[in-house]
């Protein structure tokens, strides 16, 4: 158990300290969403209608941004070799790394989303629901990304390949995330079904992601 907390604590510390890039995702999210009203113009009704989609796209791109660091830094400094010789099953190791990654890059997105909702003319009441969809959906982004990060770990400039690998797999998350968020804004549209499927996608990713990522690491480090 102490190995679990030690790894979680270490990864979060490394991410939060200088050069770790934990808040880069949240900052990028902020910039992208802030640019949208300038590009669309002051049409408040249009902004409110496309607001959830913009927030979700922004969150998707922002969570991709730090994803290549998930294993690459450990690979570069030799830590990954030692992580693989630990007593902990590799599946558990990568799960903990993904949780630490989500806590430092995914959760900040959920926290800043309501503030950004103001820029997109989303009502305060609906904003809670939009943030809830991000809270339910971002774990899926992280754990699907985990597979891509494990596959591209040994490649130079793997970040680009990572985006190409991961983005298509996140399409279902995007579809149900945005439709649940839209349902919260448009009166009468059912929020439940889309949100439930979003939760299911996250649960799928949390279970399958670590198994696939561990297999990719074992195969790739030869």
């Amino acid at each position: 158990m102490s190995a679990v907390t030690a790894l979680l604590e270490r990864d979060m510390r490394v991410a939060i300290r200088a050069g770790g890039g934990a808040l880069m995702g949240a900052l990028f999210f902020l910039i992208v969403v802030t640019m949208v009203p300038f590009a669309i113009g002051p049409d408040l009704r249009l902004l409110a209608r496309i607001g959830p989609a913009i927030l979700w796209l922004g969150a998707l791109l922002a969570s991709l941004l730090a994803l290549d660091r998930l294993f690459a830094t450990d690979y570069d400094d030799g830590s990954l070799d030692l992580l693989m010789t630990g007593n902990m099953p590799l599946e558990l190791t990568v799960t903990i790394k993904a949780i630490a990654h989500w806590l430092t890059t995914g959760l900040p997105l959920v926290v800043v989303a309501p503030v950004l909702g103001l820029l997109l003319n989303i009502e305060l009441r609906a904003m809670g629901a939009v943030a809830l969809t991000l809270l339910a959906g971002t774990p899926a982004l992280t754990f699907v990304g985990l597979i891509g990060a494990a596959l591209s770990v040994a490649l130079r400039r793997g970040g680009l390949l990572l985006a190409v690998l991961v983005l298509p797999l996140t399409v279902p998350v995007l579809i149900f995330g945005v439709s649940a968020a839209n349902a919260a804004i448009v009166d009468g549209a059912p929020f439940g079904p889309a949100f439930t499927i979003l939760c299911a996608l996250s649960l799928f990713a949390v279970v399958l992601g670590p198994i696939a990522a561990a297999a990719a690491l074992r195969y790739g480090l030869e």
Partner: protein
Amino acid sequence: MYLRAENLGCQRAGREIFAGLNFAVGGGEALLVTGRNGAGKSSLLRLIAGLVRQSAGRLELEGGETDTPIGEQAHYLGHLDAVKPSLTVAENLRFWIEFLGGGRPAAAALEAVGLAPLADLPAVYLSAGQKRRLSIARLVAVARPLWLLDEPTSALDAASQRRLAELMRTHLAGGGLIVAATHGAIGLERARELKLGPP
């Protein structure tokens, strides 16, 4: 305890690195793996650590825990030091001690490699030799019977090399095993040699 290899072979990217390798190392013994560059010294160590798959033969650690892979009973000291620059010296070591299953307190191990005064310094300020010593502190802190050392003396000054030799002798005296890839002497008097590659 015996580390025994029979007819061991290794292929990487379809190219044969070595084949038909036989050796046995007993408790308290050191095996120096030598050979020209590219002969497969590092590959052999990584293979024993379970980081590279063997293509042929058998490798077993007799007298070790049978259900545990050899890699989990071994310390692998590779070319890279596995030191996070943003963490302090003590934080780096404490993490590896906890992750690798606990052992002596970090302070005692830092004392053993002469890094105790730097415990609270972020590791980014360490020199190459000091990072190496921080990496070696892990071997001292967590007890594992087999040490796999890849060029352990690189970047170390004369005093640190003597200190490492002392740590290795202590490990061997306690019944431990050492397999070290090296080009020069590493300060162990009675060590057998395994020469890789064409004679």
